[in-house]
């Protein structure tokens, strides 16, 4: 490994900015969750236009879910672990490129269709806020730069950069409060740009419609179909010997109202 100089920019981008980003993300989400439950929605525009949405939205969303899974695998699981179970670097990489490429293209295609729809469908465009537009710019930039790293690495032939030895250790080190600035500084520019844009996306996340992703209704699979709530908070507990499923009071379980 060549002797490496860590510049002030490196420290700012890879040592300081991640923590600023995390503070804004977590603080912003808590604030939004506490004070803006009413604004916490998908803001669906299906009522206005549904033909394009029916193709574009699932394409984008399933694509981005796959992309998220790819990021989790690539960033969190150390290379040593996959080596230990006998996954060769080449095999891993080809898989990552193939699956990641398909997911990325799907996501970008979906996003492109969604933006086309947003621009050309009158009512949808009328309902687009400045906030939405800003969010789209950052989101698409993150996807484009991310896809670019994948595409570039295809053309780099044998000299493929292994992000699992630069970006991933840095990513994990952030959460250990020992940011490994040096290893991120080694990563190629394409990865660095993607990472910065990605962090910017997380900075704006709590203040855009993206928050709807954090209330993905997984608990729908487990809750009873019929939901009862009492206006009087004591009553259900007083009158029934045991509170049965589906009869929970306000402020408990499924529909906890803070």
């Amino acid at each position, binding site marked *: 490994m060549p002797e490496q100089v860590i510049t002030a920019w490196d420290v700012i981008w890879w040592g300081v900015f991640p923590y600023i980003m995390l503070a804004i993300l977590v603080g912003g989400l808590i604030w939004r969750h506490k004070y803006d439950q009413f604004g*916490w*929605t998908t803001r669906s525009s299906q009522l*206005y236009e549904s033909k394009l949405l029916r193709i574009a939205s699932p394409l984008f969303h399933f694509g981005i879910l796959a992309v998220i899974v790819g990021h989790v695998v690539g960033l969190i699981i150390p290379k040593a672990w996959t080596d230990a179970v006998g996954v060769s670097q080449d095999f891993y990489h080809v898989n990552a490129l193939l699956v990641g490429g398909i997911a990325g293209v799907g996501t970008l295609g979906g996003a492109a269709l969604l933006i086309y729809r947003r621009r050309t469908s009158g009512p949808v465009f009328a309902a687009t806020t400045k906030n939405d537009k800003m969010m789209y710019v950052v989101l698409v930039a993150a996807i484009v730069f991310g896809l670019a790293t994948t595409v570039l690495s295809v053309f780099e032939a044998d000299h493929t950069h292994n992000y699992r030895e630069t970006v991933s250790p840095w990513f994990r080190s952030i959460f250990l409060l020992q940011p490994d600035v040096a290893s991120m500084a080694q990563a190629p520019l394409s990865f660095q740009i993607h990472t910065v844009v990605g962090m910017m996306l997380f900075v704006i996340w709590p203040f855009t419609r993206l928050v709807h992703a954090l209330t993905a209704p997984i608990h*729908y699979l487990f809750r009873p179909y019929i939901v009862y709530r*009492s*206006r*009087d908070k004591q009553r259900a507990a007083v009158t029934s010997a045991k509170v049965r499923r589906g009869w929970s009071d306000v402020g408990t379980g499924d*529909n906890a*109202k803070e």
Partner: protein
Amino acid sequence: MRVMAQMGMVMNLDKCIGCHTCSVTCKQAWTNRAGTEYVWFNNVETRPGQGYPRRYEDQETWKGGWTLSKSGRLKLKAGGRVKKLFGIFASPVQPELKDYYEPWTYDYKTLIDAPAGDDFPVARPKSLITGKDMDIAWSANWDDNLGGVAELGHLDPIVEKVRRESNEKIQFEFEKTFMFYLPRICEHCLNPSCMASCPSGAIYKRVEDGIVLVDQDKCRGWRQCVTGCPYKKIYFNHKTGKAEKCTMCYPRVEIGLPTVCSETCVGRLRYLGLFLYDADKVGAAAATENETDLYEKQLELILDPFDPAVIAEARRQGIAEDWLDAARRSPVYKLAKVYKVALPLHPEYRTMPMVWYVPPLSPVVDLLREQGHDAEAAGTLFGAIEELRIPVEYLAELFTAGDSAKITEVLRKLAAMRSYMRGVALGQEPDASIAHAVGMEEETLYEMYRLMAIAKYEDRYVIPTAHREQAHDLEEMGCSLDFEDGVGMYENSPFGEASGTPTPVAIETFNALRDRQTSESAPSAETLRGRVNLLNWDGTGAPDGLFPAKHDGRGGES
């Protein structure tokens, strides 16, 4: 047995004149906001007609309500939980604005601002969605009074079905057609499929009165409830991105006032009151195999408020005495369960709807009269109900899942009431045989007549108020913790006049309005505790304290 109370409504369709007052007042009260322009919590449909949104009753297209799985279990028609989550990114079955209508306003300003010229200025329709010029193509009641029915009548899903199943044709030729109005609000079902469809668990049924509401803070706008509701009575607010629905005017009902649609109903055709029902049996009743049995099963859920066992259990469940009393006086209980003249709308959706309808006899009576018969003679009417099969079959598709015998039974009771009371009104000897012909006693028939024809305000609306001990949870009283005296008795406070926490405006307004309605004079200082609430002053008289005390000249020396 788990006894629960349900605020229910009955609408007597014979009295509906299709004036849309209920729709308009409801809209003014609840949905006159941006994002809800197309939303009608209450709408009035002319039947035959497509309804609102168009063809909402065609569940093969819209997938609303419940259905039975192969093993006989209840399942959502639009699919189970996993299927719903996979379809969440673009709800697969979702009405679009074109299925409702594009709301519009008119460019009234040009009428005033247009420069003088040879042509009259016109106010062009402007879309409330895009703000651009638009062509008006449909509305919430475009086919009102059978408008365009000759061309579009076949699009009514019920007409389609009746035509398919009977070889007779529903005629839309002027002299052979029939029509009636169907006002619709949310059904506040016992087994709501909108609630079951909601991924966020934001829709809930209130334990106290069964009113179904959407928690606006918990709704995330996944729109599955719109698909789930077979009556399409949940609307998506396209500005806020949240689902909205009829609230049964719960802020009014809580203080004992009828809903806005009921209060303003010109025909006085709405009844409000309590049902007691057995919540433990709802699931089993909704899973009844045969669709035509669903009405009977739903009726079985309704408990007899005079039954000592029911009363004891209700008390044990914490239902208050005044609510039990209201349940015993409930007009909706009488119409649905005692006289059995009110029927649920589309029981085949298996949601156990709690807004019931007395089917209209008028298409039959009108036709008889036009044909020159004595339309109110018992014999003629009884015969004609059977004879005029088309209206009966149409009504059966609406109210009894196609069982026309039950509709005939109800119409015969209504006909009997008419004929019997006509005899009484004409000073003839009351004809007991008419009552017996429909399996009723003369007294019952007379009681039914009192409730349905005289229909006094106090008899139509029997609404127990929400409980004082729960007052702190009432919508407006969030901050007035110790509002002890409740509605109607707030004159006394521990430290004299105007001490303690302020009286909530709703309570004060309620009392002032009641005073004004029941007495000759304007609300005086007495009821307002010496203060003047200008909100309650309607300009009649000058309540004490409105103006400073006048010096009358002679009192100058003091």
